[in-house]
């Protein structure tokens, strides 16, 4: 199977209504590991993920893949901070990405059922997705993203509104996905979570990749004063 990675951002910028949100960014996302994107509010974490995934259009520079963009889009998924729930039952929500890929309804629903079992959602199969609790919604979002077995998974602060137990469940799922060779890029505000999960870190500040590198090095010896302050829990403006 041809990998869609590396993903390369070359001098990439993103603007919204004339205001620069991110960039210029030069970054290469390699094929393995779990990358955590951290930084203060408004640093551009979400925009960077959206830019990489293709939800945010590049206003300058380039985002390129090892394969044509259409093929790359087919092999990645995105989990949003506020779960977007389709007005369907859980089983149909899970089956939907498979249906989009042309899978027959019965087969897609069978896959959805086994996927739900893996994610602990088997008792909720006939529940309406918008009626689930916050934690259940986020688990469903994650299951819906992983059901297509993406090569690359983006997560935008998936545990932002969850309690400790739900956060642990999500982290376990992510570690399993990583072990099954899913490349993960995730933004978070939670330094503890970043330390638990990260192989690599991207530290965003004022719309730019301020510092990046291996997690161990980043958390023990951050180079820039801003990264140092951020990892110490100081306020970075």
């Amino acid at each position, binding site marked *: 199977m041809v990998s869609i990675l590396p993903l390369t951002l070359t001098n990439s910028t993103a603007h919204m209504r004339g205001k620069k949100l991110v960039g210029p960014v030069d970054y290469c996302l390699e094929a393995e590991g779990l990358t955590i994107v951290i930084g203060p509010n408004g640093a551009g974490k979400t925009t960077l993920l959206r830019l990489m995934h293709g*939800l945010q259009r590049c206003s300058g520079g380039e985002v390129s893949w090892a394969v044509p963009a259409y093929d790359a889009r*087919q092999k990645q*998924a995105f989990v949003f901070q506020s779960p*977007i729930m*389709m*007005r369907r039952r859980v089983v149909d929500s899970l089956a*939907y990405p498979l249906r989009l890929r042309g899978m027959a309804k019965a087969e897609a629903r069978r896959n959805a059922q086994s996927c739900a079992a893996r994610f602990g959602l088997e008792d909720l199969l006939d529940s309406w997705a918008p009626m689930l609790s916050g934690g259940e919604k986020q688990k469903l979002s994650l299951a819906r993203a992983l059901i297509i077995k993406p090569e690359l998974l983006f997560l935008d602060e998936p545990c932002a509104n969850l309690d400790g137990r739900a956060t642990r469940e999500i982290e376990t799922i992510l570690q399993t996905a990583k072990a099954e060779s899913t490349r993960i890029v995730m933004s978070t505000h939670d330094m503890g979570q970043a330390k638990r999960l990260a192989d690599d870190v991207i530290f965003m500040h004022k719309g730019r990749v301020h510092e990046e590198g291996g997690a161990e090095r980043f958390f023990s010896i951050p180079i820039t004063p801003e990264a140092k302050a951020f990892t110490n829990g100081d306020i970075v403006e």
Partner: protein
Amino acid sequence: MSGFWEAWLLIITLDPDLYEIIFLSLQVTVSAVIIASLIGLPMGAWLAVNRFRLRRYVIAVLNAFMGLPPVVVGLFVYMALSRAGPLGGFGLLFSPIAMVIAQVIIITPLIASISHQTIRDLWAEYHDLLISMNATRSQRIMALLWDGKRALLTATLAGFGRAIGEVGAIMIVGGNIEHATRVLTTAIALETGKGNFAFAMGLGLVLIALAVIINLLIHIISKTERARTW
């Protein structure tokens, strides 16, 4: 009161003339609603999902067409279907098909406009998800129509409400011909013209009852307004 009793008697004795009128009313209206929904719902969804240069103007015109005067529509359809008109060769004037055509023209903008507003809100909610899932344009429209189906029912029922009570256009293109194109509204207009106000009122009650029953049935079948459904 005698007219009411007369109308009531006609209903319970299964008067064939009255039931013919009721069935034709339903036949014409339901056909028009189905055709207008097939056009209007995807049109509303398409307008919600797509961005193009004149989009705002198209939506403004569509909204304006919600208030199309039925007699003017009737006049245009009459001219189009009359012998000298471009579609005169089909011989459709003064037939139920002509009535359906007029009703479709009247209610399609209504259905499209209401569905556009419904789908626009749903699209704002689903936008990132469907783009992220790489759904094609037609897959997006299908998902929005499917997931918004209960809200879209309102659009369809609004179309039904307007069509079943419509009189101006179908009077012109249908001609109110007994046993051919006479429906409840045109029959009411005729009876009123003849001075049979009570009987006309009786028919009016039948019309209202019909509209209420159809709406209730559709709500029951589609399980709207039930807890924990979308």
